[in-house]
C-alpha cells in the first residue's frame, strides 16, 4: 500500500509539473485523475496523516474567498494548511493538492487540510477526508444542470453531515434559510454565523432568490431584513421555525464600494473592528465564515485580525491587474446571485464604464446559460459606455444586454478572448479601469492570457 501511494504521489507531482510546463494551466484536476486511477484510496491515506485533521468549505458562492481567508488566519496561528487554492474543488483537485503538498512517500508537509469542495462533492469528501469542521456558505441556484435541484442537493448534504463524527463541528450561514436548515440530524455540533445589522438591507427579494419557502412546511417565509439573494432575517409564519441565533456575527458593516468594507465582528469571546479589502456584502459573509471557522479551530482575535489584514485576493475575485497603462478589474461572476452582487458593487463606480463580459458554457461553468436571464442586467445596462461580449456564448451575453436595454451601438461581440480584451483596452483611456466580468473558465482563460502577455503572475505562483 505504501508503495502504491508513493507511486500515485510521484505520478501526481509529475503530471502537475508537466501540465504547468506545457502551459496547460494550473494543473489542478488532471493530476488528481491520474492519481485516483493509480490508487483510489490516495486522498484518504494522505488526509489521515494530517495531524490537525481536515476542514471542508462548501456552498455555491464564496468557497474560495472563505478558504483563502481562513488559510491566512491559520498561518497567522502558526499552522501550515494544505490547501486547494486555485478553486479546483472536485475530489481530483483535492487529491492533487495533497500530493503537491506531500513528500514522495505521501506524508503531507502541512499539518491541517483546508479544502473547498463543490456542493455535490461534499458527501464523497466527508466520507474520504473525515473532516473535523465543515463550513457551508450558501446554496444558490448554480449550474442546476449539474447539481439537480436545490432541495435534492440539500438532502444529499444532510446525508453527508449525518455521517460526521460526534466531535466534529459544522458552521452554517444563518442568513441562508436552506443552509440554516441543514444538519438537524447530524451528530456533530452546529454553529451559525450571520449579519446582525440591518443598514445593509435591500428593499425587496430579487428573482434570483432561491429559498424563499420554509423547508419544513413549505409556507412562504417572511423576511424582516434582506441582504441579497435570499439572505436575510426570516421566519416561517406557519410553523414558527426561524433563523437560528448566531455565534459569529457582523454587528456593523460600512461598505466602501469596490474598496471593501469596514466590519465590526462579534464572537462569543471577543469583538474586533476589521478592515476587509474585499467588496460587497457577500464578502462580509465570507469573512464571517472564515473568522467563525478560525475560532472553532481554536484561534483568537489576534490571528483573525492579522489574517484579514494580510489577506491577498482570491484568484479572480476582485483582482486589479495593470495592463497597457490601464487597469483590469477582474471579477468572477458565475451565477445570478454572484452577478447581481457584482452589479450592485459596480453601481458605486458611476456610469460611462468600459465592461468586458465573458460567458462560457464549459462543464465547470454549467452547459446551460439560461441563468443569465435571472441576472438583473437591467441594472448594469445604464452603466457601460461600451461593453464587449466574449466567451463561448458571446452572442447570448450580447443578446442579454440588448434586452436589458443597452443600446446595440454600445455593444461589441468578439468570440475570441484576445480580440475582446484588445477591443476593451482600446476603448479605455490611459489609467482607466476596464471591468471584466467573467464566468469560471473564462476567468481561467483570461488569467492565462494575461500571464502570457506578462501582465499577471501565473496562477500557481500563488496569491
Amino acid at each position, binding site marked *: 500500500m505504501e508503495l502504491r501511494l508513493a507511486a500515485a504521489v510521484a505520478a501526481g507531482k509529475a503530471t502537475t509539473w508537466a501540465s504547468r510546463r506545457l502551459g496547460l494551466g494550473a494543473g489542478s484536476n488532471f493530476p488528481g485523475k491520474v492519481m485516483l486511477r493509480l490508487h483510489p484510496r490516495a486522498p484518504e491515506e494522505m488526509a489521515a496523516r494530517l495531524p490537525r485533521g481536515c476542514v471542508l468549505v462548501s456552498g455555491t458562492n464564496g468557497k474560495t474567498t472563505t478558504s483563502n481567508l481562513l488559510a491566512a488566519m491559520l498561518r497567522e496561528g502558526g499552522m501550515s494548511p494544505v490547501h486547494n487554492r486555485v478553486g479546483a474543488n472536485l475530489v481530483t483537485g483535492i487529491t492533487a493538492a495533497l500530493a503537491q503538498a506531500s513528500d514522495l512517500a505521501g506524508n503531507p508537509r502541512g499539518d491541517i487540510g483546508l479544502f473547498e469542495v463543490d456542493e455535490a462533492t461534499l458527501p464523497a469528501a466527508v466520507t474520504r477526508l473525515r473532516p473535523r469542521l465543515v463550513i457551508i456558505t450558501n446554496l444558490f441556484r448554480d449550474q442546476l444542470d449539474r447539481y439537480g*435541484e*436545490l432541495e435534492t442537493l440539500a438532502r444529499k448534504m444532510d446525508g453527508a453531515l449525518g455521517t460526521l463524527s460526534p466531535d466534529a463541528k459544522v458552521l452554517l450561514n444563518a442568513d441562508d434559510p436552506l443552509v440554516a436548515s441543514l444538519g438537524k440530524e447530524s451528530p456533530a455540533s452546529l454553529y451559525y454565523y450571520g449579519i446582525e445589522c440591518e443598514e445593509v438591507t435591500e428593499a425587496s427579494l430579487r428573482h434570483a432568490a432561491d429559498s424563499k419557502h420554509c423547508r419544513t412546511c413549505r409556507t412562504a417565509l417572511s423576511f424582516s431584513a434582506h441582504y441579497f439573494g435570499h439572505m436575510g432575517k426570516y421566519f416561517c409564519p406557519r410553523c414558527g421555525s426561524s433563523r437560528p441565533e448566531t455565534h459569529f456575527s457582523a454587528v456593523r458593516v460600512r461598505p466602501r464600494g469596490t474598496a471593501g468594507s469596514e466590519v465590526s465582528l462579534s464572537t462569543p469571546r471577543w469583538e474586533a473592528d476589521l478592515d476587509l479589502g474585499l467588496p460587497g456584502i457577500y464578502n462580509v459573509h465570507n469573512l464571517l465564515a472564515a473568522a467563525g471557522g478560525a475560532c472553532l479551530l481554536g484561534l483568537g482575535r489576534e490571528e483573525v485580525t492579522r489574517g484579514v489584514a494580510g489577506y491577498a485576493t482570491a484568484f479572480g475575485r476582485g483582482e486589479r491587474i495593470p495592463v497597457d497603462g490601464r487597469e483590469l478589474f477582474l471579477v468572477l461572476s458565475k451565477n445570478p446571485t454572484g452577478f447581481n452582487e457584482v452589479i450592485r458593487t459596480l453601481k458605486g463606480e458611476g456610469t460611462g464604464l468600459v465592461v468586458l463580459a465573458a460567458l462560457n458554457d464549459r462543464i465547470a461553468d454549467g452547459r446551460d446559460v439560461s441563468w443569465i*436571464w435571472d441576472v438583473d442586467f437591467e441594472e448594469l445596462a445604464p452603466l457601460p459606455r461600451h461593453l464587449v461580449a466574449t466567451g463561448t456564448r458571446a452572442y447570448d451575453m450580447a*443578446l442579454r444586454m440588448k434586452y436589458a436595454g443597452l443600446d446595440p451601438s454600445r455593444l461589441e461581440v468578439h468570440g475570441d478572448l484576445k480580440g475582446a480584451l484588445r477591443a476593451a483596452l482600446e476603448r479605455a483611456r490611459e489609467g482607466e479601469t476596464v471591468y471584466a466580468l467573467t464566468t469560471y473558465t473564462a476567468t481561467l482563460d483570461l488569467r492565462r492570457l494575461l500571464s502570457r502577455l506578462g501582465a499577471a503572475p501565473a496562477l500557481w505562483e500563488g496569491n
Partner: protein
Amino acid sequence: MKGLDLRICHLYPELMNIYGDRGNVIALVRRCAWRGIEVTVGALSLGDPLDPGRYDLYFIGGGQDREQMLVCEDLSTEKGEALREAVEGGAALLSICGGYQLLGKSFLTWTGEYLPGISLFDVETVGGDTRFIGNVAVRCELEGAEGVLVGFENHSGRTRLGPGCRPLGRVLSGHGNNGEDGTEGCVYRKAVGTYLHGSLLPKNPRLADWLILNALRRRHDLEGLPPLDDSLEQAAHGAALALVRRERRLPARAARKRSP
C-alpha cells in the same frame, strides 16, 4: 403601432422561474415596446384569482418539485378552469417545462407522487430515472413560425401527446417530449407548451412574435407585426445552432430539410 396594447399575465413568477425562464417575459415586453405597443405585465401567484377575460397572453415557467406541488394545488381550484377558459377565448399562452407539465392531464413523478393537471393540453407526463439535459434544436411546425428553434432542455419527465393537441415541432437534436417519438412540445389553439429553456424567446424571435401577434388579435384586428432589426438575435440563434451541430455532428443540411 399606436393604439395597440397587450396585457401579459406572468403566472407564479416567484415560484416558477427556474433556469431564467423570465427571459421570455423580458423578450415579449421589449419586442412590444420596440414596436410602440403598450404592454403591461401582471403577476398572479398562489391564491390570486384569475379573470379569464383580463389578459391576452399568459406565461408560466419551470419550477422545482417543491414549488411545482404548491402551484399544482393552486391550479386545481377554479383558477385552472379559468385559465382553460382564457385559452378557449382566444388568449395566447407559453408554458415551459414544469409549467407545461402542470397544464397537461397529469404528472406522475419518479417518486410516485401524482400531480393532476388542468388538462389544457392533451398530454400526460411520467417521471423518468434519468434527466434529459443538453442543447436542443427543433424544427418548429407552428404555422406562421416555421423554422428551427434552439434551446436547452433539462427534465426527467417524459411527456406523451394525445390526439387533442399537436407537437410544437420535431427534434433535430436532443430529446424533446420523451426521447422516443421525436416530438417536442405541444400546441393547442394559441397555447404552446415546451421543454425549451435558454431563455427560449430571445433567441427565437419568430416564436416570440407569433405569440405577440396572436395575443394582440384577441382584442385587435391586425394583419401582422412590423419587422425589427433582429441581426443580433439571428447571430445568437446561429451560434447556438452551430454549437448543437458541433456537439451532435449534425449535418448542416439536416437542420434546413423538411421533416417527413
